[in-house]
């Protein structure tokens, strides 16, 4: 198929015109420029490379800042979460469920048992069962663990050391939670009974009676051992 817009005669005559070519110096200049550009191959990629160079540390810094912020946030949030968990005084007043007690007792024998009963071989089986129930409750442990002041210090320390290591922060969180629990408990039934026994022993019978009445009002279901009854009741 011939091109209607092509004229052989015109084309032939055009080809008869002198063959013009660029001067050699121009050839060399252009080729030299092309070689320089090829050697400096990243030249057109300078901008992307530069962006990449900025991008990497920027991205790393962003990740670090986000991670640190998140960690700090979590550390500061945890104590507040713990604040929700401590049982209310009314819950503390009620004896814990039966099935929960033995587990706690097995996990950590209450230290009070040893101090209250220096001669463990002596006690009779009924006494032991009666003693073991209140003694195995978690409350005495909470009482004896950290003092409220120490707990408050630990609480403050945990907040101040928020930027420090996570382990330390967690320890602080745990101790602060314990402290809060212990503050919530005014006096355990066992302690109250011991206090009444001391009053009775000191001859302050009226005061002991009032305390005992208050105790029975406060812990109506608390089962007092015969040994303790002998100590706290008026003779």
């Amino acid at each position, binding site marked *: 198929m011939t091109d209607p*817009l092509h004229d052989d005669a015109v084309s032939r*005559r055009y080809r008869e*015109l002198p063959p013009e070519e660029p001067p050699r110096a*121009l050839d060399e200049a*252009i080729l030299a420029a*092309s070689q320089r550009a090829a050697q400096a191959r990243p030249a057109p990629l300078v901008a992307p490379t530069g962006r990449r160079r900025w991008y990497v540390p920027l991205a790393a810094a962003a990740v670090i800042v986000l991670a640190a912020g998140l960690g700090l946030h979590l550390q500061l949030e945890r104590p507040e979460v713990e604040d929700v968990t401590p049982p209310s005084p009314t819950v503390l007043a009620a004896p814990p469920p039966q099935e929960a007690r033995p587990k706690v007792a097995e996990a950590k024998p209450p230290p009070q048992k040893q101090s209250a009963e220096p001669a463990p071989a002596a006690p009779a089986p009924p006494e032991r069962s009666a003693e073991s129930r209140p003694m195995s409750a978690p409350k005495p442990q909470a009482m004896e663990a950290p003092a409220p002041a120490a707990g408050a210090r630990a609480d403050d320390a945990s907040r101040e050391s928020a930027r420090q290591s996570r382990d330390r922060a967690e320890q602080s969180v745990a101790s602060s939670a314990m402290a809060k629990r212990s503050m919530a408990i005014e006096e355990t039934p066992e302690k109250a009974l011991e206090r009444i026994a001391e009053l009775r022993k000191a001859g302050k019978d009226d005061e002991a009676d009032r305390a005992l009445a208050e105790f029975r009002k406060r812990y109506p279901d608390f089962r007092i051992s015969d040994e303790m009854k002998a100590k706290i009741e008026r003779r």
Partner: protein
Amino acid sequence: MEGSDEALMLNYREGGAAAFEELYRRHKAALFRFVLRSVRERALAEELYQEIWMRVIEARSRYEPQAKFTTWLFTIAHHRLVDHWRKKGLQLAALDDAIDPPGAPDLEPHPILEGKQGLERFLRALEALPPAQREAFLLHEEAGMNVAEIARATGANEEAAKSRLRYALSKLKEALAE
């Protein structure tokens, strides 16, 4: 070095200096004649010609073989010539009608063509064409472009490109008949 123009340009884009040399060797004469016969002034033609190749070098990272390399090369040349015409005060719309761009040098007898009156007359007729028609004819002859390719390289529609080429051929045929 073997390979299509497009493959060579891709090779050069990836840093192959030898590929550019081959491309340059293939197209330097046609491009130089295209520029020289468009502006008719050798010093200016050399300057524009070098700038066109520099643009090719600079644009290598953006090169994508969506069209023939020659179309891409002569499109760059066209844009450079348009810039030149603009500096000369010639609007694009006038390129079809202008007979002699402002500032064009007086035509002297070509030393090689002296005595060859037919060729001299043909060259005069070519140089007397309006820039747009001359460009269409030169793209057809030097770059081997058809109407569609001329339209693409010059940013014109095909009808305009076809019309320009037809007018150019008509006037050059008249010069041959004289």
